[in-house]
């Protein structure tokens, strides 16, 4: 290498933060290895977006989090997203988790739901085995830096044959621009288990720029079913780079429900690797772009398993000068016979200055498969406006109904009622109403 990459995080900081957290040596060692890797890796290259022009250096510094004893002591921005009396909850406030609760019932079933730092100490075998297997440090410079610098986070383990009805919830709040904020979520659903997990990423009152370099890893073992819903609603001070990955073993199933509601620049990549036969991945994503946001959303399904099925469905609304690149990538590997990969990207443009590119990409290396894609970019249909207005509905209300209607099928899938209501409110705000 002729150019020495100057990284935004240094080994001395990693050591210092690890010491402050009382971290296990194996973990710190992994972090340092990841950091070393970062120096030799390039930035990720999402389609049609040049990340080398983005400012991805605002990692901040680790500030020890102060735990709170009850939900009511949490910051208001977090409380707003939590139903009173929620039993299974993790809240991260800047650099660390400040509140954790798990019902006795779930605990008795062997469910582990704690911050990832604690899990690395108390459940070393599990964490060691799975951490970094879905979002690998070697993927690119950003993932390597994430593995070096992550903090707080969630570890959720659902034992074999345990089926959970109630969704588990997490909230990640950034309100101190100088504090590093890089949660890592690791979900391991053991054989034939079933779980729903919901989280929100939110910022409040930031006085400077923040980079959220986040990673989500979902490991679904044979026959496990995971429903994963996440809503990102960071303010414009936050640049959000989020990599979400699921690995599916035989007959496992993941459903992603993603709301991309940030006000700042965002790169999000949600991918499922369908390793096992008979696996199923379903990704539903809604996004609203406003202001001068630059957005790049990728949804990906990689089929290795026979008779594996993937569905990807993205709906985005772009207003003002927002620019979005929306990629759907269906990759079917050789040997994945009878696989079926379907994807749809729809973009609704509300302003002539907004931009929305939908790129459906099919990469098929096997003959005996089905694959399909549909993509559309368009304005609100004037015939629909006319129809609604002919019933006495004003033009503004008609447009609002049509835009909500465009997003409604995905909002309806959010598994917690409070979050559905909150998401509605964010949608309204993002649409300037």
């Amino acid at each position, binding site marked *: 290498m002729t150019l020495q990459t100057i990284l935004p995080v240094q080994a001395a900081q990693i050591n210092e933060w690890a010491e402050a957290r009382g971290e296990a040596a194996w973990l710190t060692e992994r972090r340092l290895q990841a950091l070393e890797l970062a120096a030799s890796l390039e930035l990720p290259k999402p389609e049609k977006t040049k990340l080398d022009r983005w400012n991805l250096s605002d990692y901040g510094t680790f500030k020890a989090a102060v735990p709170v004893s009850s939900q009511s002591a949490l910051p208001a921005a977090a409380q707003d997203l939590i139903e009173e009396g929620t039993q299974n909850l993790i809240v991260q406030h800047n650099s660390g988790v400040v509140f954790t609760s798990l019902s006795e019932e779930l605990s008795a079933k062997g469910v582990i739901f704690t911050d990832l730092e604690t899990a690395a100490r108390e459940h070393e075998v599990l964490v060691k085995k799975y951490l970094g297997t879905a979002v690998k440090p070697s993927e690119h410079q950003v993932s390597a830096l994430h593995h070096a610098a992550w903090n707080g986070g969630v570890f959720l383990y659902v034992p074999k044959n345990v089926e959970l009805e109630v969704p588990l919830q997490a909230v990640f709040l950034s309100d101190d621009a100088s504090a590093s904020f890089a949660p890592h979520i690791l979900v391991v659903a053991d054989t034939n288990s079933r779980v729903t997990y919901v989280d929100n990423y939110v910022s409040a009152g930031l006085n400077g720029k923040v980079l959220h370099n986040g990673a989500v890893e979902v490991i679904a073992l044979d026959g496990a079913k995971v429903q994963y819903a996440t809503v990102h609603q960071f303010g414009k001070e936050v640049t959000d780079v989020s990599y979400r990955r699921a690995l599916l073993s035989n007959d496992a199933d993941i459903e992603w429900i993603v709301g991309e509601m940030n006000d700042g620049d965002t790169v999000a990549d949600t991918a499922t690797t369908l390793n096992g036969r008979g696996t199923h991945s379903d990704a539903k994503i809604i996004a609203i772009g406003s202001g001068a946001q630059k957005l790049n959303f990728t949804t990906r399904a990689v089929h290795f398993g026979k008779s594996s099925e993937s569905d990807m469905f993205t709906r985005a609304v772009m207003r003002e000068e927002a620019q979005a690149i929306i990629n759907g990538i269906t990759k079917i590997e050789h040997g994945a016979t009878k696989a079926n990969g379907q994807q749809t990207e729809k973009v609704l443009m509300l302003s002539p200055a907004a931009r929305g590119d939908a790129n459906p990409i099919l990469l098929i290396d096997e003959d005996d498969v089905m694959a399909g894609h549909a993509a559309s970019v368009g304005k609100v*249909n*004037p*015939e*629909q406006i*006319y*129809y*609604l*207005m*002919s*019933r*006495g*509905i*004003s*033009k503004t*209300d*008609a447009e609002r*109904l*049509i835009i*909500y*209607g*465009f*997003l*409604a*099928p995905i909002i309806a899938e959010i598994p917690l009622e409070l979050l559905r209501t909150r998401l509605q409110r964010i949608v309204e705000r993002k649409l300037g109403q």
Partner: protein
Amino acid sequence: MATKFVIEGLKAQIEGKEILKGINLEMNGGEIHAIMGPNGTGKSTLASALMGHPKYEVTEGTVTLNGEDVLDMGVDERALAGMFLAMQYPSEIAGVTNSDFLRSAINARRGEGNEISLIKFIRQMESSMKGLEMNPEFAHRYLNEGFSGGEKKRNEILQMMMLDPKLVILDEIDSGLDIDALRIVANGVNEMKHEDRGFLIITHYQRLLNYITPDFVHVMMQGRIVKSGGPELAARLEQDGYDWIKEELGITDETVGQEQEA
């Protein structure tokens, strides 16, 4: 106040082609007028121009509802003034349920602070749907999405019943309906007959008029009303077709602007 709807010298064009070449019509509350005529004579254009479809440009003439200038109003204002157009091809709107849409339309009339209660709304909707023999599930379906032709037409009539308009225009409400659906739709219209409400029924088949008896029948050709009469005119058209009118008036091509109507 008794409803009075007056069209005078209405001319309209689409993409520079004149389709309506001077329509005159006067209607009072309680009256049912039928506009008949072969395809391509401007009937549906008349319906769309009256409602204010953005593609149709009115170039001349006036339209008033109870003395108010309709042409000066936006599409939504026309509806709030009491006009209702049951469309030939209603739009499908995904993600907006039939009931949410109807409630928005009703509340647009009632104004802020005076919204219809949910219970009252549901009761009204259920009873109207029952009358139209609609599956109650249609209340929660997305607006017209995946509805069959006949279901869409019933849904138009449902909206008419719930919105209680003063002037109803039915544009080819009978097209694509089987005989049972036709009877149900016609019953819906007949139930809504009222001394304050006028109906303008556009059709090119006489069969709808077996179920809804018009007070006046007008024949459109070449973008104009060329003949008017009572219900007996519809009966004559059923028996003899339109050729005798063309002969009488010396018309060889009754269509206008090569517009294709379905």
